[in-house]
């Protein structure tokens, strides 16, 4: 039987964990570490990966998991929620916590004091949203949950005056499947199966975040070729997602040819994924404790050819779209995210980079991406509108194509010697995994006890971006801008709702 060599062990406990004696202490520590200042273009040194409730032996505890950019250093902060002491809400100072605090409140009944907007979030069907704008001529317009042609279920309440949108309240969690609860008591393999189904169009991102969290918990250090292969899947996923979002944007602006051609690019990427892994959505591509047994040398020519064809087509039609004034006109100044929101709401992903914030897991943790052709793409205009998001996506497409090429070449030239995980893996541990998915940072947190999952927490990129979506929509836009804004954000409800 194989045993895991010594170098494949990483420390069992998070390098740094701290149990705050009181909730006030907890809040202070969190604020001190995490708040980003507006003058700074870089992401804050400490990033908040997870904020939620964890079931301790007797009671509930508040858990925040942080990671320091550029290092392996993690920080797990907990505080008891059972002592009946007051819990001051942080959402006023740090609106990124608006929704997470609501969720904690709804799960535990423990009320954050002075929370600006305390409404149940997990049971949308039991809450009637009320109009927020007042005055003559204000109309409330409900939209959803069944909306548009083919789209995910979510509800939006518009307050409008004439065409102008005054206020928009998104209501999600219609698709809450309780995945985090479902994972409790399951084996690592079963949890991975669930992780793949959190957000289908981010399968690879969620699966590799989950796999690295589990592997950290069970103290298995993946060798480089495993990391490269996972990154390859994530980049391939980014390609089809960006093609999809660009196509939807073209459709929202009435550019039918652009839409059809970009949808074609997406289909080609999906077929490439199916050719390589057998699944169009990369289900099962990420393996626990190892890599696939694809013969990369054989697959290389086919991959290069399909990739070039898709790349040429996308760039050709993006060029045509960029030269179409009626298209660009629809994007400029539409759905603008203010720079200060990006900071206050700790935005991630394309949305943040379109505001000029340099945040990207691949940039903040440049471990195994060096030499793959990666560079961070922030919008040069940094206007935070639909046009900036369009530009960032196009740039990222090109970067990802470069990365896929170089990663496959690397894989083709590496001898793989997978060290099978030993049967006597440790039976308990904690782990965090985070990945830059197509929409932004995906983070998974697991606690394993007795070989089974004891706690599982998921924060997808969309969960940090949704709260800003309403603000950006009401930011001087009219009703007919909504499809453009929706498409330019490209958010996932499934990832948020879990």
């Amino acid at each position, binding site marked *: 039987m194989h045993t895991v060599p010594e170098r494949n062990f990483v420390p069992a406990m998070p390098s740094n964990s701290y149990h705050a004696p009181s909730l006030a202490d907890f809040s202070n520590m969190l604020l001190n570490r995490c708040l980003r200042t507006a003058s700074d273009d870089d992401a804050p040194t400490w990033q908040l990966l997870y904020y939620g409730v964890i079931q301790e032996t007797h009671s509930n505890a508040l858990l925040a998991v942080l990671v320091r950019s550029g290092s392996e250093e993690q920080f797990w902060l907990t505080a008891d929620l059972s002592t009946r002491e007051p819990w001051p809400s942080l959402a006023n100072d740090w609106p990124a916590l608006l929704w997470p605090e609501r969720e904690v409140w709804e799960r535990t009944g423990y009320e954050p004091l002075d929370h600006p907007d305390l409404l149940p979030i997990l*049971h*949308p*069907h039991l809450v009637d949203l009320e109009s927020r704008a007042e005055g003559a001529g204000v109309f409330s317009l409900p939209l959803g*949950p*069944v909306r*548009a*042609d*083919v*789209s*995910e*279920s979510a509800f939006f309440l518009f307050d409008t005056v004439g065409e102008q949108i005054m206020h928009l309240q998104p209501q999600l*969690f*219609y*698709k*809450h*499947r*309780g*995945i985090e*609860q*479902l994972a409790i008591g399951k084996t690592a393999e079963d949890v991975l*199966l*669930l992780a793949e*189904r*959190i*957000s*289908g*169009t981010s*399968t690879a991102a969620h699966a590799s975040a989950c796999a690295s969290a589990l592997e950290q918990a069970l103290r298995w250090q993946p060798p480089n070729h495993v990391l490269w292969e996972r990154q390859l899947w994530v980049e391939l996923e980014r390609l089809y997602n960006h093609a*999809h979002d660009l196509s939807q944007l073209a459709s929202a602006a009435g550019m039918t040819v652009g839409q*059809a*051609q970009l*949808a*074609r690019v*997406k*289909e080609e990427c*999906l077929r490439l994924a199916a050719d390589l892994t057998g699944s*169009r*959505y990369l*289900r099962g591509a990420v393996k626990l404790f190892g890599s696939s047994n694809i013969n990369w040398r054989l697959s290389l020519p086919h991959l290069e050819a399909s990739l070039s064809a898709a790349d040429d087509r996308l760039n050709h039609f993006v060029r045509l779209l960029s030269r179409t004034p009626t298209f660009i006109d629809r994007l400029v100044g539409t759905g603008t995210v203010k720079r200060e929101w990006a900071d206050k709401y700790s935005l991630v992903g394309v949305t943040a980079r379109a505001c000029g914030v340099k945040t990207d897991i691949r940039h903040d943790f440049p471990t195994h991406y060096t030499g793959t052709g990666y560079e961070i793409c922030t919008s040069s205009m940094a206007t935070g509108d639909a046009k900036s998001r369009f530009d960032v996506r196009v740039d990222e497409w090109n970067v990802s194509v470069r990365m896929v090429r170089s990663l496959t070449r690397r894989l083709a030239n590496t001898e793989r010697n997978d060290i099978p995980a030993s049967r006597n893996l440790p039976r308990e541990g904690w782990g965090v995994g985070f990945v830059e998915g197509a929409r932004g940072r995906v983070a998974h947190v697991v606690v394993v006890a007795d070989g089974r999952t004891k706690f599982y927490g998921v924060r997808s990129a969309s969960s940090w971006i949704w709260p800003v979506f309403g603000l950006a929509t009401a930011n001087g836009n009219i009703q007919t801008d909504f499809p453009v804004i929706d498409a330019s954000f490209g958010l*996932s*409800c*499934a*990832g948020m709702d879990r």
Partner: protein
Amino acid sequence: MIKDPSIASHSFSVSPDTYSTVPKPDWQQMDDTTLRQFQKKFGHSLHIRHIDVGSCNACESEVLALSNPYYNFHRLGFFFASSPRHADVLLVTGALTKAMKDVLMATYEAMPRPRIVIAAGVCPIHGGVFRDSEQFVGPVESVIPVDAHIPGCPPTPYALIHGLLLASGRMEEGAERA
């Protein structure tokens, strides 16, 4: 105005009795004559309302792919309808969650008769990995009658086209055109 009242009754079952463990609600099954009428009325063009009752979004992605130039299901006379009031077919994806149950019933109620329901993906048929979740209500079949099941996680666009042709009774024609 529907002249023949029998057409207003629901459902025929294209699926085998694989799912017979699921308690069926007391819906009147559609008989052969009505089925023929349905196919006569809608055999050539179907308008489809899609509803997501708790999916992971991969199913939506595949449903959307039907309209891309590779599959172009418009050539077969299938179209997406933006309102259930204009739809002949309800295409359900996802694991039915508590929050979506009433929405699903309301959408189904809003459809004109005759109507057919297609469950696409493992989730609406069985629940898949979400079956044990306390948020999961049950197979869609336990809430509204389902006429065709398209398994897969997610079902590929070809499988979806197959299911649509099957449900509208146009399989042979589909084979000719393929």
